[in-house]
């Protein structure tokens, strides 16, 4: 009897471990930063003096194609939630998002990047402004690195779903 119980326990643990490892390999875990720049009306209104405006528009459209009416260009009547701008500095930072509402694109990297790399990074920074943290799937917009990604992964979408619940 004791043996049977032990066997059942072990099998249970193995099954759970297998299921867990399966969910890890098929897609990475959704992740949130714990802060976001979305306003009380569930909008992320942006303003910009960046020269990478076409990447900014493409990045906005990528998120908007999944959930619409959230990321919007700033209007005269709305106060911006995030300001996008460029700077130049020799460092490993391609772009950054600060919790005080500024996204900066580093010319040192951006100038020579491909459209796909710029789209990935710009979408990634908007993702931070939406409250998304880094994830580790190869195709995740929210992964690290200077790579070209032009679609949201299922993990990116799940992270956004989770973030939306906190707005």
């Amino acid at each position, binding site marked *: 009897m004791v043996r049977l119980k032990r066997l059942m326990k072990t099998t249970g643990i193995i099954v759970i471990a297998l299921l867990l490892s399966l969910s890890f390999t098929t897609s990475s875990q959704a992740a949130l930063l714990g802060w976001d720049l979305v306003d009380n009306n569930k909008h992320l209104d942006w303003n910009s003096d960046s020269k990478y405006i076409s990447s900014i528009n493409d990045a906005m459209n990528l998120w908007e194609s999944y959930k619409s009416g959230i990321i919007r260009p700033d209007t005269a009547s709305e106060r911006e939630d995030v300001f996008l*701008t460029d700077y130049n500095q020799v460092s490993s930072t391609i772009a*950054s*998002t600060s919790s*005080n509402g*500024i996204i900066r694109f580093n010319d040192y990297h951006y100038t020579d990047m491909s459209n796909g790399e710029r789209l990935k990074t710009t979408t990634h920074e908007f993702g931070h402004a939406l409250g998304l943290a880094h994830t580790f799937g190869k195709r995740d917009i929210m992964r*690290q690195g200077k790579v070209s990604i032009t679609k949201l992964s299922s993990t990116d979408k799940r992270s956004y779903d989770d973030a939306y619940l906190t707005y």
Partner: protein
Amino acid sequence: MRKILFVLLLIPTLILSACYSSNEASINDLPVTKLTGSFSIDVNDLTQIVGDADYVFVAEVTDEVETLYKHPVTIETENGPKEVSDPYTKYAIQVVDNIKGKLKNNKKFDILKAGGISQDKESIVLYENDELLQVGKYYILAAYAQPDGSLLVSGPNSSSALTEMGKSKIVSSKEYKEYKEAFKNEMKSERKRFKSSHEM
């Protein structure tokens, strides 16, 4: 018996927490403005940190000189337009040992570190997993030469605090050996590089 044990444990806890709170007053009580970034390298891989940097060295931080504010932008806030810049903390350092590159070790000079107290003095701006340097401590720093010859330390894992003091102890420490090993296997990135004005 249990009660005595409890009290015995409680006393040092109270003393310790009192010490901590008095030490950490002022600047450390400020909220943190978080910087989260996209990086061109895997900042968790030491061979990439070392390979991407221009200089990697052991240094003692001898002074915190000032905070510089760069890249100002004007944003709209509840209270109207406000100028916001990125803080960079300037430290005077004394190089103790060069791991990558050759910086002067007979003379103190200044470096900049991304992050510091915000212009409105209301928060500390820092990258995730990053901390400001402390005067009197030794660090292994990974620095980028700027076009003007100055040195910048920026981002996660660009500084590693050492517990050992003095060159002989440091060079036999585990951290130092890890950086030496990472330099041997460095993953050098293709990028336009500049030269520090503090080279030997």
